[in-house]
């Protein structure tokens, strides 16, 4: 558990981060979202003490971070810096191996880990291991940056706009991969982005920042359905709000008994998928299946009812 306790960072007259408090549960993904200059990076960097807070403190599993030497603290925390920050004079493999080497892992264990990570991010180890960062595309560089942060399997991972340079398709895949890695390893991730879609898609909880303040910190459904302020509502966007909400609710939640025509959807699909299917094929209901067997249906009326509670 990470407790951020009334943390403030002042640069001259401005509070880049202004008395932010949040509790991050172990094994969850927390996404901090906000406009440019809202203090996201500063907040993130105060967790591993790359920035020293002006006041307040951070505790990891009850231990205040200022009680540990910064370099020892940072070796336990993965950090994917905004804009990758790869070492241009080192190969991809050596970049990824940075932290394991600091931790004195044996060479064969390091090599195996490098290849494992490259494969995980869809980059053929044989092809990419010995390249230099300049010989990669922007998206590949960013993936190597994330791989480097993951290399020593840290319990806590801080990521600053890790998917900014990726195209929408690769980006969606990288997000799914990250979620899967996180579920598998049970790591705690704090991720910074200015993309509300990404926040809603990835976050177990989402923190919205504005002018250094944390204006709302809640599960994504709450952010969409009950924005704490006009700013949050604006970030979510009026036009996209219904779709964002539907994308968070599984079909299983609204499944009722009854028959329906046409192709079936799994009960883990989102209501957004169900709505799309209805609209695209002109149906009023879609059959829902689990393990190949139909368990009921979800109707257009039910979806409308679920969304339309906000009049």
């Amino acid at each position, binding site marked *: 558990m990470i407790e951020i306790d009334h943390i403030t960072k002042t640069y001259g007259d401005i509070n880049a981060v202004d008395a932010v408090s949040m509790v991050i549960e172990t094994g969850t993904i927390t996404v901090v979202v906000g406009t440019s200059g809202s203090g996201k990076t500063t907040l993130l*960097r105060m967790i*591993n003490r*790359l920035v020293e807070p002006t006041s307040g403190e951070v505790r990891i599993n009850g231990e205040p971070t200022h009680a540990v030497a*910064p*370099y*020892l*603290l*940072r*070796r*336990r925390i993965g*950090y994917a*810096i905004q*804009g*990758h*920050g*790869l*070492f*241009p*004079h*080192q190969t991809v493999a050596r970049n990824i191996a*940075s*932290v394991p080497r*600091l931790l004195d892992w044996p060479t064969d264990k390091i090599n195996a880990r490098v290849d494992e990570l490259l494969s995980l991010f869809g980059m053929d180890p044989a092809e990419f291991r010995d390249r*230099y960062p*300049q*010989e990669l595309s922007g998206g590949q560089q960013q993936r190597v*940056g994330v791989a*480097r*942060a993951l290399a020593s399997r840290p319990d806590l991972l801080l990521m600053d706009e890790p998917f900014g340079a990726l195209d929408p398709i690769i980006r969606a895949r990288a997000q799914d991969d990250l979620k899967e890695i996180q579920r598998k390893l049970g790591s705690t991730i704090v991720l910074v982005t200015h993309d509300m879609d990404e926040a809603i898609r990835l976050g177990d909880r989402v923190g919205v920042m504005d002018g250094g303040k944390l204006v709302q910190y809640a599960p994504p459904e709450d952010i969409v359905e009950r924005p704490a302020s006009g700013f949050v509502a604006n970030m979510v966007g009026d036009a996209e709000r219904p779709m964002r909400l539907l994308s968070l609710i599984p079909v299983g939640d609204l499944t009722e008994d009854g028959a329906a025509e046409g192709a079936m959807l799994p009960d883990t699909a989102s209501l957004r998928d169900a709505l799309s299917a209805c609209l695209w094929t002109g149906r009023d209901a879609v059959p829902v299946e689990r393990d190949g067997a139909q368990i009921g249906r979800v109707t257009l009326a039910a979806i409308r009812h679920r969304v339309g509670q906000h009049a």
Partner: protein
Amino acid sequence: MGLTVSPPGVLFAVLGAASLLLPFLTLRANRIVAGEGAAPWEVAGPTVTIAALTAIAAGLACGLLPSRPWLRFAGSLLSLAGLIFLLSRGAANLLGDAGDLARVSPAAGFWCLLSVVMLLMADAIGGLQPGPRLRLGLLTLVLGALALLLWSGALNDLSPMQEYRTRAAAFRTATWRHVALALGSLGVAAAIGFPLGILAFRKARVRAVTLPVLSFLQTIPSLAMFGIMIPILGWVGATVPGAQAVGIAGIGFAPAFVALLLYSLLPVVANTVAGLGSVPAASVEAARGMGMTGPQRFWTVELPLALPVILAGLRIVLVQNIGLAVIAGLIGGGGYGTFVFQGLNQTATDLILLGALPTVLMALVAAILMDIVVEVAQPTLNRKNT
């Protein structure tokens, strides 16, 4: 490409042809009187002349071919061989009919042709885009050939070689002294300059003082600098106990060494600061973020990334010092400058050449070697070439 001739090749051919009209060798009654020039076709017998001139012309003609760098390189070697053949045979021939005290020296025509051929060689090598290894190989080859040529005695009839023979021992001492001055001052400048540069990079206040002071030192004309050293070190030698014993005095090695050292500091410090400044901030932040300690960050990230720029600074210093060390001859510091200034006093041009030519050669070799080192220090570059 549609080009059928190499434009620089045309230039070299025209310049080479024009140079043939200049006197190739000078014959003088003794080592200090003015002499008489002899044109390339006058210096030797018809067979030698025809063979040599054909080789020179054919080599320059090869230089006309674009996109055949190896052939152009071979052409430059052929021209060079013809040039040296004519020089060697011409000198022997001219001396044959002259008196015992007569001297033969290369004249304007030879030097122009030599420059043209060297330019062609450099242009051809540039076209080869050689990797560090090939360049090192070519350098060794050329130096080996030069050593062989000097050792064979083919040039012994030339006046600078005669000057050499009467002072072979002094030449050897001067060589070591020159190297000691240039490399030694570089070494000490690096030992002082690196830490100072690192400090100046980290602390704006140190930078604000250091760089202007060193820039000012750099603007002092070299003769004045060597002059200033004489009273200062003379005073130190006379007053500080033990200073005289380790060789510190107003004239000699010490003031020359210190003057060179002062000139060396600015490039070392400035390039260390610039090199460290060119390290991407994101890389340093990433290193910090992954838990590297200060020294780890310095040795594994900052220094390797700054190294090419720092080495470029050392290259400047080394080449500059080899040239400047000549002035040490003026204040008894030794080195090749001794011959240059003796030669100036005696109006013996060939003695001046005995000092100047090895200086130029040493500076060239140093520049090429340092270029290779700088290139090897850039990890992504050298990979493409090996």
